[in-house]
């Protein structure tokens, strides 16, 4: 019997139709509610918040529309990336985020290409979302049918997604600045509709994790016991990897496809050094995520360095500090 057979026997997707039904029954109304919120409630709230902040603080740092969108996007990924990362890191799945980011970049390239031909479809981040989600489901399929989340499929997906992106761009995308912003991240290049998408993704991810935290923690810590308690391990694996895809797409705007995994991993790694509790670690990693984002944006402004890079470097500085604190 092959390894795949054994895994199939251990992880039968037995209640898939029921689970899918559940996801649709809960997901469609939630999705509609979030969409309605994003289209009609969020824009005035966003405007009112920044207007107030701008009048109160009155520096161009919070009054420029570019930076307002950048700060908002940064704060959002500083929340979602560490939350999802906490489960990934503790399952040694950190690089899956990187692989999904690279496939998302392939999606961006497709989106730019299609958008150039059909102006109505000029929304590359949506293409990234589709590409990353499909890649996530593919990864999960491979994991179920082979030997778990192995190196080889991850490496193939990582390079393959990127290769598709480069191929399409070299064939016929002219906006090199746009391409670069998705590759390395650009906080000054976040259109408002992308902020809306990121708010939506954040609500979706945070809501899902709030609902399923217990199950995600259980399968992270002790799969066998989770299966014994009749937790549908296969379903929650899929859920986690799809959430990762959503987060990666949201974060790609700021950090770029190449640096995205850093935000999933580094704040979590830092939090793990200084706490004994998973739940406290989860909250702390969000705090560290915010420190990295705002510290990074500030450092980037101060020294005129690319923001994605400074965010990751500040995160690493926090991590090094946590090593010192944690070893005491």
């Amino acid at each position: 019997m092959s390894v795949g057979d054994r895994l199939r026997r251990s992880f039968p997707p037995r209640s898939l139709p029921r689970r899918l039904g559940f996801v649709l029954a809960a997901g469609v109304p939630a999705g509609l509610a979030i969409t309605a919120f994003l289209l009609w409630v969020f824009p005035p709230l966003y405007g009112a918040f920044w207007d107030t902040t701008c009048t109160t603080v009155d520096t161009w740092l919070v009054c420029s529309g570019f930076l307002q969108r950048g700060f908002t996007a940064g704060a959002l990924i500083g929340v979602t990336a560490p939350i999802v990362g906490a489960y990934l890191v503790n399952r040694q799945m950190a690089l899956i985020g990187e692989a999904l980011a690279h496939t998302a970049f392939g999606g961006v390239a497709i989106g730019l290409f299609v958008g150039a031909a059909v102006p109505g479809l000029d929304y590359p981040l949506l293409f990234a979302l589709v590409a990353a989600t499909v890649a996530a489901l593919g990864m999960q399929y491979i994991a179920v049918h082979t030997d778990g989340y192995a190196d080889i499929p991850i490496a193939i997906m990582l390079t393959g997604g990127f290769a598709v992106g480069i191929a399409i761009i070299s064939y016929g995308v002219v906006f090199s600045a746009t391409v670069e912003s998705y590759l390395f991240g650009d906080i000054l290049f976040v259109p408002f509709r992308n902020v809306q998408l990121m708010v939506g993704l954040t609500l979706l991810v945070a809501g899902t994790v709030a609902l399923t935290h217990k199950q995600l923690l259980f399968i992270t810590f002790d799969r066998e016991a989770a299966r014994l308690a009749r937790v549908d391990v296969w379903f929650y694996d899929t859920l986690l990897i799809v959430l990762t895809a959503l987060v990666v797409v949201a974060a790609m705007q700021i950090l770029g496809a190449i640096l995205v995994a850093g935000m999933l991993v580094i704040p979590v790694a830092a939090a793990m050094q200084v706490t004994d509790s998973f739940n406290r670690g989860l909250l702390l990693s969000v705090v560290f995520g915010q420190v990295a984002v705002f510290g990074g944006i500030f450092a980037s402004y101060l020294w005129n360095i690319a923001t994605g890079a400074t965010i990751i470097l500040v995160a690493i500085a926090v991590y090094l500090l946590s090593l010192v604190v944690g070893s005491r």
Partner: protein
Amino acid sequence: MTPAISVENVSFAYEDEPVLRDVSMTVEEGDFLGLVGPNGSGKTTLLKVMLGLQSPDSGTVRLFGTPAREFTEGTRLGYVSQQSTEADATMPVTVREVVTMGRYAHVGLRRLRDADRRAVDDALDRVGIADLADRRINRLSGGQKQRAYIARALASEADLLALDEPTVGVDTDSVGRFYELLDELNAEGITVVLIEHDIGLLADHARTMACLDGELYAHCGTREFLESDALERAFSSARTVRASALAGGDRR
């Protein structure tokens, strides 16, 4: 009364290597079954098959009368495995958080309630590690850690407790207290299935014993079992060569 576990003509193979051959046995509710056998005799596999974690190639397994794979009352099962999981060595997670996982099968998607927290506190008290509740699980000694996993099973209100060599690497004093705890829980009506190397120790506590080496050599009351030649036959069979290091009471 429906038996807690019934296994009928179960066979199981990894790749082409048969592990279990035509095993049939029942475990009555309230039993304390000691499962012994040479290394590689399929004890762990049998335990997993009993719990529905593995499907047999042939034969049927029932948990409390329901086919094991369709058995959905996860709250009734507790499992303390042989090794610590990989995550429990590196992951920051407190003893209380681990024991709380025992409530998850009750809780589903809703939030934890006071009753759940009380069940966790009671379970921690019961196994005597309430003072360690906020300690990180990987800072506990082997014996304390196994108590934490028992507490998790108690928090889930399991009435079947399966343990796979829980005392490997645990010091002798703690092993004694660990067995006392198992006796108490069994006296309260919890069915215990225990895999253990130390046959002498097991014989002092188990109500029934079963000896396995691919096939089942005997399953009967402990005294009768010790007077039979089941052990001799199982441990001297051809499969045992691999396990020659195994004697009655080795403890690493």
